């Protein structure tokens, strides 16, 4: 007894385990456990398994020699760099339109949210049939107006990819417009009134008041949209199915294509190839959001 007493006297800094683990701390661990279990079973394990599948250098050599992969990589870059920047510029412009105080603009903004509120599958299929070369509404109208057959829209890889980007923009434009609207509404009206008094043009107001207070938000939105668009499977798969001749694949649909062909290692290797692009963006976003 005496020995244990003397040792416990010496060890003052660290309190016994039972004290560090107070009741709230135990409850904290218990309440966190469900998420941790889900995370371990359905994130950690699949990610490790995926990386393990993609371990052979030969998979990357095979990818390098697959023209469909190169085409998909280029398509993905076009989708991200041109598609997303175009979308965000339009969203920035429309956010200025929708904050105008008119009752008809309020009503329009309610309708404008619809593409975001409805599921994407039926609307993408609706667009797909609209552009059907024989029975689609667009070509029927072209035929009625000009007496000539319209183009076979989805059979041209450039047009098909453009349309997939358009479908993506149709779906997600309302969301980003809404976010940028909240950014615009947060700017103090006094600044605009003062500029008005000084006789500033609308461009000067935008350049010196709106843009400086929105640029961080705008850049964050653009990066976030790029990361998420990398995973946009539906717009391409349901509109073009990757065709014609596998020329409109993006990385998200290519992974599934390889899975279908039972080339799991290629499927994972294609995704690993995207990581050098994705991880810096993710790191930047986490820095921004966990402040």
């Amino acid at each position: 007894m005496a020995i244990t007493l003397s040792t416990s006297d010496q060890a003052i800094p660290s309190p016994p385990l039972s004290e560090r683990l107070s009741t709230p701390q135990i409850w904290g661990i218990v309440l966190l456990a469900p998420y941790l279990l889900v995370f371990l079973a359905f994130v950690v394990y699949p990610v490790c398994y995926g990386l393990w599948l993609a371990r052979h250098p030969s998979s990357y050599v095979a990818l390098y020699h697959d023209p469909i992969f190169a085409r998909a990589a280029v398509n993905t870059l076009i989708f991200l760099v041109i598609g997303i920047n175009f979308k965000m510029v339009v969203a920035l412009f429309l956010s200025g339109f929708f904050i105008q105080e008119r009752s008809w603009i309020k009503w329009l903004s309610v309708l404008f949210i619809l593409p975001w509120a409805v599921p994407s599958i039926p609307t993408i299929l609706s667009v797909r049939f609209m552009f059907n070369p024989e029975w689609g509404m667009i070509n029927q109208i072209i035929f009625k107006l000009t007496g000539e057959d319209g183009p076979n829209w989805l059979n041209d890889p450039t047009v098909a990819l453009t349309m997939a980007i358009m479908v993506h923009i149709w779906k997600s434009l309302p969301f980003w417009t809404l976010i940028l609207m909240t950014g615009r509404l947060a700017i103090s009206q006094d600044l605009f009134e003062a500029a008005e008094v000084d006789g500033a043009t609308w461009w000067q107001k935008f350049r010196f008041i709106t843009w400086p207070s929105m640029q961080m938000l705008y850049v964050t939105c653009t990066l976030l949209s790029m990361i998420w668009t990398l995973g946009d499977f539906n717009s391409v798969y349901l509109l073009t199915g990757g065709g014609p001749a596998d020329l409109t694949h993006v990385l998200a649909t290519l992974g599934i294509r390889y899975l279908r062909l039972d080339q799991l290692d290629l499927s994972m290797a294609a995704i690993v190839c995207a990581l050098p692009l994705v991880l810096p963006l993710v790191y930047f976003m986490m820095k921004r959001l966990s402040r």
Partner: protein
Amino acid sequence: MKLPSLRDVGTEARLLLIGIPVFIWTMLPIYHMFLFAISPKEDAFAGKLWPAHPTLHNFHIVFYQQHYFLRDFWIQFWNSTVIAVSVGVLTLFIATAAAFSISRLRVAGGRWVMNLALFTYFIPAAFLAVPMYRTMGTYGLLNNHWALILAMVTISSPYAIWVLKQASDKLPVELDEAAVMDGATTLQLFRLVYVPLMMPSLVAIGTYALLLAWNEYLYAFLLLSKDTDITLPVALGNFLAADDSPWELLMTTGFIYALPPAAIYYAFKRYMVGGLTAGAVKS
């Protein structure tokens, strides 16, 4: 009444010049879907802007499952509902518990878990689809509704935890201290103080997870395959398998499938806009 000045008319005209194309752009695919749903097959395929004889016959065919592609319509509708509701409830449970633990109890390592969750949120879900498919195979869950439910909970909970943590960080600490002073146990604190105060955010997150699961295509199509197991979006995708698909029925089914989420979205818009857009991008 004052006559509008020339300048006002000019501004209004310019606004209309933006508003009208925006209206057409937004409504065209949805109108096209609606048009097909109320058109007989001949009218739909003739490219008319309004059918000569609008009809609800297509809805009749869908509701009574009178077509090869629609023979399991109601069971697929039921699958979609069960899966969406389960994902909503499970996500709410997991995320609320985790957010309470991280934000209010300040559990050791909570910050770490939060960062891991955020990291998962930013990785595109399609990247995880192939390994998730194989993992579900290893766990023996393929073609089981639990596979889709668990996958969707995995995808929806990081964002849910993050939004709920942001919201609960704003609740004053004094509330917890006062409750503990009065002798509340941790569970009572959770049940009687925390959950009631968090209600608006919980509604937003429950709706978010439910809609995410209802709308999901990729995971549903990978993880479920039997006709009586699949959800509605997968059934819609399966229409494309045939060369002469009955597009008017496909559009009718799609229209029915799109109605519940649109109604839910507009009903909870108040919560959605406040609770989700504020969290989506912190400016």
